[in-house]
């Protein structure tokens, strides 16, 4: 069932992901990358989604554009969630950073950059966070082999 705020968002933005707009209590929006900042600003300022829960990506190697960048927002006033998805191509996986709106985006975007190689335009600090300096590749991409090892210090014989 759609919460009232979900209906207002659908009305305001006129976009929805394929399939049911609201599933498992979360409204899913599929937007173009250049809409991201506007949608996030509207969610935060007009609809009261004050908590950015999470930033991650999903890799679909056979699809073009290849990556879904996925954001989850929550409102601490109405207790509902919104998932915002945008698609970026493998050649230029770039989206705008949400750091100007949410400081919680800083670490989350660093992790997503680590794991998928998505660039966040406007986040000045995309140093590795879960990985280390000099790590080659992005391990959660589907074409990164699970067993590849890159030890920083050679293993003891």
């Amino acid at each position, binding site marked *: 069932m759609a919460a009232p705020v979900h209906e207002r968002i659908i009305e305001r933005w006129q976009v929805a992901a394929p399939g049911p707009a609201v599933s*498992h209590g979360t409204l899913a929006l599929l937007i173009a990358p250049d809409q991201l900042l506007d949608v996030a600003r509207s969610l935060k300022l007009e609809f009261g989604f004050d908590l950015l829960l999470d930033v991650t990506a999903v890799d679909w190697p056979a699809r073009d554009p290849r990556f879904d960048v996925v954001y989850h927002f929550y409102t601490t006033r109405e207790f509902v969630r919104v*998932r915002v998805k945008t698609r970026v191509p493998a050649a230029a996986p770039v989206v705008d950073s949400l750091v100007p709106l949410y*400081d919680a985006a800083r670490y989350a975007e660093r992790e997503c950059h680590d794991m998928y190689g998505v660039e966040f335009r406007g986040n000045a600090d995309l*140093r590795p966070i879960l990985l280390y*300096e000099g790590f080659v590749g992005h391990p959660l991409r589907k074409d990164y082999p699970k067993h590849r090892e890159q030890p920083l210090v050679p293993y003891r014989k």
Partner: protein
Amino acid sequence: MPVDTPLPNPIRPAFGPGEREGTTVVNIGPSHPATHGTIQIVAELSGENIVRVDVHCGYLHRGFEKECESHTWHNLIPYVDRLNYCSALINDFAYCDAVEKLMGVEITPRCRYLRTLLAEYSRIADHLTCTAAALMELGAMTAFLYLVTIRDYVYEHLADLTGARVTYSFGRIGGLARDLPDGWLQRLEQILQQYDVFVGRVHGLVDRNRIFIDRMRDVGVLCTAEAINWGFTGPILRSTGVPRDLRKDIPYLAYGELDFEVPVGIKGDNYDRYFVRMREMDESVHMIRQLVARLPSGPINVDDSRCTLPGKHLVYTEIESLINHFKLIVDGPDVPAGEIYSAHEGANGELGFYIVSVGGGVPYKVHVRAPSFVHVGGVHRMLEGYQLADLVPTFGSINMIGGECDR
């Protein structure tokens, strides 16, 4: 490698020594007795005061999410256990709940109550661990021993139920591994009574202790707006004075049927975080007693061949059940294509699972919204401006758990 070859530095600090006049840059961790958990903090000090810090995590990164993509849905349960190893059952149930929602499975009433009970029991163990460690680091060894005494009763008691002390692997998609053994609830009530005795002693030792208050009051202060902006949830957000708790706000499991309060702090400092955790444990005890009184009888697993293993007597006697058993073990439960974000109130805050399925027995993606990772991202707001000696209790009060932070 010759010993004099410098090892490559795994991190690139945001600032180095000599950038500002009159400050010193020190490195704390990743292996330091006062940072329980492998975390590295590069701190710029002006005398004893912390000017700025750069916090690095990831030393415990073991590719959890990558590993999840090549195992069946059931095989992930031991992995999710090891996210927050202080309250492993909460992870189990949050994960199982997300998969069950994707499959459209509704668990039995007894399972719902037992999961709620065990989740609250785990919350007590988690808060006991966090509070005990924080007190010990301030020198309160007696309080530490009182609290871990109870925690050990809880661990031994959970071992009677699950066979393991810390990482239980007890959740199942569609139910639980087994029902309660005889006498388990009687022992539970004994432990809850012991809890009252020991935690009462800690309250007496600590709450109005001058040394403790001087170290904790007005240290590591965080206001509500800032906490939300940085993504803080759980006891840390509540310590700033807002009763935001998923158990109340979006009731799941049996929480909608229980009577409990959401304790909040006054100003979001270390003292408030201590007190919120202590009060939350009391509420958990209150909930457990209600759950025991109302525990429904009946099966603990749903009768659904898509996820529940058939009984052994059937596996050995009829071919359909044998095939069913093999299909569930070899191929895994068939989870329909779709995606879900489902969150439970973990001991540290919102523990969310974002799961993408393309159908079949193996997940396409499992992402964990781990409260500790988010909290480490904002902990510098609680450290900067205070003294170096405050780093230890403040860091202890966020209860960073390496398993879920680094995944």
